[in-house]
């Protein structure tokens, strides 16, 4: 918002808009700036976790910005000591994170869409109850719910014991600490974040549009793809963002359910911070991850706004 517009707003409006802005400033922008500041310094000397920005060198005060932390994300020495690009454990962790986040998003979309559609088309009187069911898991601690999956997916867990008892399996299926347990856990935890925005857009949709599509010769499947999906695009995007973004930096679920070979970036940041005590590198990794998220969002917001502006003409 530009200042000229801001100055025309009434006091009440300024307050309503201002409070969340101030909130974001204090709890997002300021910490992010601190993170940025840490990411451009050296490691500390054992007392401080990172070097000060302002240093007295040869009697004069200098600000020293180091880009090594960022460079080390993309570059590392191979066995012969030569610097190699792109093949670092950090990049690998980023790619693993993006991969799991994408898979989780896709799984949540496929599971959540029919569910949201079903709620939106259910009788108005039972919709609150169905939504309550979606939100019911939030009444239990997130950590406990993830732990519970250990009991379900373990070698001697509920699923394996049941399948063994049925005679379908001869020996337990390895599920815990694999891709299966990771994706099951993340999909389970994040599915409500997909369902709720999808429901919000689907419930606003005029289902007479589907009748109109049928009337014009579209089969139910065609009508779904040509009318329902495009009209719920906003919900699909919002839900996907709400699942993808937290999944990318997810730390707890990979720690509890993930295997040793699938290291996600959240785990790497943790290790750099608390094992290697390398705060600057941890900060640099976090900054790069924020950029990973912000860049596609900004592109989407830019083109989305442009398209909406065109539609208004």
């Amino acid at each position, binding site marked *: 918002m530009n200042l000229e517009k801001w100055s025309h707003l009434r006091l009440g409006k300024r307050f309503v808009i201002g409070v969340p802005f101030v909130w974001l400033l204090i709890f997002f922008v300021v910490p992010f700036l601190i993170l940025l500041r840490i990411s451009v310094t050296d490691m500390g000397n054992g007392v401080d976790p990172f070097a000060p920005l302002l240093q007295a060198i040869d009697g004069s005060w200098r600000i020293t910005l180091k880009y090594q932390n960022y460079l080390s994300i993309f570059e590392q020495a191979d066995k012969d000591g030569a610097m190699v690009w792109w093949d670092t454990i950090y990049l690998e962790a980023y790619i693993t994170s993006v991969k799991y986040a994408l898979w989780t998003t896709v799984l949540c979309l496929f599971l959540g869409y029919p569910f949201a559609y079903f709620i939106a088309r259910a009788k108005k009187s039972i919709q609150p109850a169905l939504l309550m069911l979606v939100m019911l898991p939030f009444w239990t601690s997130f950590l406990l719910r993830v732990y519970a999956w250990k009991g379900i997916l373990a070698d001697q867990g509920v699923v394996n014991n049941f399948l063994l008892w049925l005679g379908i399996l001869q020996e337990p299926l390895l599920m815990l600490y694999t891709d299966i347990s990771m994706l099951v856990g993340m999909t389970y935890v994040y599915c409500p974040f997909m369902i709720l925005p999808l429901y919000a857009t689907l419930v606003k949709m005029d289902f*007479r549009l589907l009748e109109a599509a*049928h009337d*014009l010769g579209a089969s139910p499947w065609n009508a779904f793809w040509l*009318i329902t999906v495009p009209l719920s695009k906003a919900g699909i995007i919002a839900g996907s963002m709400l699942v993808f973004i937290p999944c990318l930096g997810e730390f707890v679920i990979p720690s509890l359910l993930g295997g040793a070979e699938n290291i996600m970036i959240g785990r790497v940041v943790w290790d750099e911070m608390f094992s290697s005590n390398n705060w600057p590198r941890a900060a640099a990794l976090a900054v790069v991850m924020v950029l990973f998220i912000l860049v596609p969002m900004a592109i989407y917001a830019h083109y989305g706004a442009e398209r909406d502006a065109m539609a208004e003409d």
Partner: protein
Amino acid sequence: MNQLDPNSSGFLLTESLVKRFDDVVAVDDVSISIQKGEIFALLGSSGCGKSTLLRILAGFEKPTAGRVLLDGVDIASFHPYERPINMMFQSYALFPHLNVWENIAFGLKREGMPGDQIRTRVDEMLNLVQLTAYAKRKPHQLSGGQQQRVALARSLAKKPQLLLLDEPLGALDKKLRQRTQFELVNIIESVGVTVVMVTHDQEEAMTMASRIAVMSHGRVLQVGTPKEIYECPINRFVADFIGNINLFDGQLSVDEPDRCEITTGLGVMHIAHGIGGAIGMPLAVAVRPEKIYISKKLPDVGVNLFSGKVREIAYFGSYSSFIVEMADGRTVVITEANSSRLANIDITWEDRVFFWWDEIDPVVLTQ
């Protein structure tokens, strides 16, 4: 023509159609026959079953019993997307994410028409509804009247055998509605499509339709031309529903082939035709307000002459309406055309007036 039922005639037939929702009968034994090329209106107040009947024709509802024959083919089991029928929705139901051009092309694309033919057909339809300049607009950028024309163009694009209109002018304001009525009829007639429309607005039904079915509680009470429905209603409900009418209850006292007399609370009323009923049977005499003359002077007429006191006068511009109270306290509504600037200017509140009507004008209702 694949005529399955040789006894029936008509392009669209419904045979003993019944639709039940749980224990509510929405459509109750409806049999109507609609000719090719006519505009047929289903008229009734809300909840009379007219919309359900239209939705059965469109295929959105399955009838509980009965058949729907279109050009001799029973279409009751066809899905909406398999019927050669298109509907213009009351809310228009234009696809908000598609522009005008894409909305009109939607149905054509679904039937797999080649691209160049689609372009020709859509341009033709845009031209028909005079929206060529708006082809790239989204529905929300159009006025209500323009949206209605897009909806019409979209429903006509596939050259349906039957066009269904659900309250076609319901979403427009009054002034626009009158202009659009004629525009709509002109377009429909230029295309030559058979139309079934649903409306609760009798004026709309009368100006647009060639025939009207008056519905109440799921049943069709009377089918006829607008004039037949207005001038010759067959029962009290139809008489009362269409326009204003004065009803006088009485018994048949004289019944001859060319005349009859009915004794009512007001006195004896003379009718210029026979009833063919039993003497003493209960009847109602129905007289339209505009068929009644009113004057302060005693006119030179022998029969159907009554008097009363003016209670209310309402001036409507083109006509005035008088409410006259009779001796027994009941009231009669009389309208007079204000054909002259000074007509009826001398009649005012509390005046004692005479009113009368011609023997041929009343309708005798037996039910």
